[in-house]
């Protein structure tokens, strides 16, 4: 895909900001840049947005409310039909099932209730930007792991020096470097091509939506491996685990976990968008 230089710059900023400042500031930057005045909506209409941007969204200006997620009708299956409403269904979201903010400073929005929500960002640009942002967040998590493990001692030596820990960190790094390489190709200036119109450095296959979904899942898996290294600290609400959770939610809302439905039926349209 041909991506305008300023969009690529926003991607870079999102990654750097996620790594240095955290997920919320990075999402604020990216959302302001790629989706000013309207919340970026996922294929099913959900959004995860920085709270401070809610006042900037025109969608809510005339309604006096933010349409934050409340109970919805029965969710649709990937092919768009709604599950049988007679089914015993105690765990469906009820009106009381409003989720807490996934991270302080972030709000979760349910599908837009206005008849015609304003158009959001270009899905490809937004998707790649999110992947960069999530990579930056994952790198921040890696740094938190190294810091935690360096001070955590076993028999006088730092946990960081245990072979198994070194190996796990190196594995995470390999994944992150590979992801960076894949995304990096999108941010580079178009390379001069040879007489056959191809560049030897170009990937053989494009980073289409299913491939991007797999890349997002890869980021989630690295995060999970890193979270294991943080022990129970990463499972508490005060540790870096909360930003990792918010990052999982971003991937879920904007592309979902890659599944066979996505592989085999990715051109099938549903009332809510393409699955």
């Amino acid at each position, binding site marked *: 895909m041909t991506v305008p230089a300023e969009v690529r710059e926003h991607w870079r900023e999102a990654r750097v900001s996620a790594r240095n400042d955290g997920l919320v500031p990075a999402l604020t930057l990216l959302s302001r840049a790629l989706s000013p005045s309207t919340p970026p909506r996922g*294929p099913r209409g959900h959004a995860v947005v920085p709270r401070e941007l809610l006042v900037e969204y025109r969608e809510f200006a005339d309604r006096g409310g933010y349409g934050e997620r409340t109970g919805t009708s029965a969710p649709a299956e990937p092919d768009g039909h709604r599950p049988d409403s007679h089914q015993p269904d105690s765990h469906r979201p009820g009106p009381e099932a409003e989720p807490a903010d996934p991270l302080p400073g972030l709000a979760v929005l349910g599908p837009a209730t206005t008849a015609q929500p304003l158009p959001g960002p270009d899905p490809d640009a937004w998707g790649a930007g999110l992947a960069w942002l999530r990579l930056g967040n994952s790198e921040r998590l890696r740094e938190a792991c190294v810091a935690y493990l360096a001070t955590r*001692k*076993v028999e006088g030596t730092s946990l960081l020096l245990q072979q198994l820990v070194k190996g796990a960190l190196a594995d995470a790094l390999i994944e992150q470097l590979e992801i960076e390489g894949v995304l990096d190709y999108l941010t580079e200036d178009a390379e001069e091509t040879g007489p056959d119109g191809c560049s030897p450095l170009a990937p053989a296959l494009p980073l289409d939506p299913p491939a991007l979904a797999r890349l997002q899942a890869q980021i989630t898996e690295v995060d*999970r491996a890193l979270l294991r290294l943080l022990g129970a600290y990463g499972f508490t609400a*005060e540790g870096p685990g909360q930003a990792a959770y918010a990052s999982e939610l971003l991937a879920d809302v904007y592309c979902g976990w890659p599944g*066979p439905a996505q592989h085999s039926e990715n051109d099938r349209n549903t009332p809510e968008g393409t699955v």
Partner: protein
Amino acid sequence: MRTLPGPLRTTHRHVRQWADDLRAGALELDRDPDAVHRYLDLPAVRFLAGHLTPPEWDRTGPEAGSGPAHGLATLERVLVSEELARGDAGMMLGSPGASMTGVLLGVLGSQAQKDWVYGRLGERPRWTCFALTEPDRGSAIGEMTTTLTPVGDGSYLLDGEKRYVGNAARADLGAVFARVAGTERLGVLAVLVDTADPGYRAEPLPTLGLRGVQLCRITFDRVHVPAEQVLGAHLPPTRRGMWGIVSVFNRLRPSVAAIALGIARAAHDYIGDNRKELRGAERDLYEELGRRIDGARRLTYRAALAVDDKPSDGYLASAAKARACEVAEEVTLRAPGFFGPGARLDHPLLDKLARDARGVEFMEGTRNIQKLTLFQGLHTGKVGRL
């Protein structure tokens, strides 16, 4: 294949039915750990609290804390834990009852100690806690700094801090592991503590999953521990120290594997219940995930039987714990993929299961610790032989 004793089958059947009720409160408890007080009348919770027994609940004797007459205590705990965690792991782990302290009492407790604990648990639903992990020290016995200082009359003063202890703020009784002042690294004892005693303080630490368990930090400031609350004092020295502690953890590990399996099954069942029709590659994946759960489950059952046969044989338990946690994370991460983007918001139970699955990793030894144990077993020829 071993045939299950009849009473164990009956227990399993009943617990399986009771487990379904736990689901109803799962999301409420996830938002508010104190909601557990509203579910104390559920049969599953009453069973865990020790106030309800299934028919044919055949124990070795009428004494408090007696094990099952069929002798397969670990397998029984595994079958029960898997079913109840399928209902809701948060509710199961956050329920009143003897829980891990009961297993500890079974190995190291005298009858008088069991009578004291079970007597109090019988009065009304009461929680217990099991305090091992320390801040910046994990749960390695050799690193422990919480201290028991002898007073001279056989009693001790307990000082120190524990972290990530489930139910500690709501518990009436706790089992606490601590080092006796002035002893070598492994001179660790387990003692019973009445949480109403002066010097005990527990405060909740909010978590990202398994919120029903309400993890806590505890501080002990000169908590008086009478001699009769020291566990294992009635046993020969070889049985009361590390041997006892290791065999307690060997017995507990398969149940933690079972909790992970229960979480994985809850997510897998959710797909089956809520996706009307699964075809082609989707059905293949659904079945593949089911087979992954089955594989880990077989390993867990074998691990439980190995420990029931020989309490020191905890290697399979390490393999089962490591594998079951891996499967739980995998299945709960992939389950939302059957429902498309936004599934974790539209199906809050799937979101909760994906968060809960992360937590079991840290209970009873992380994957790295299980791998190190397994390597020891391999190296010494204690596991993996024909």
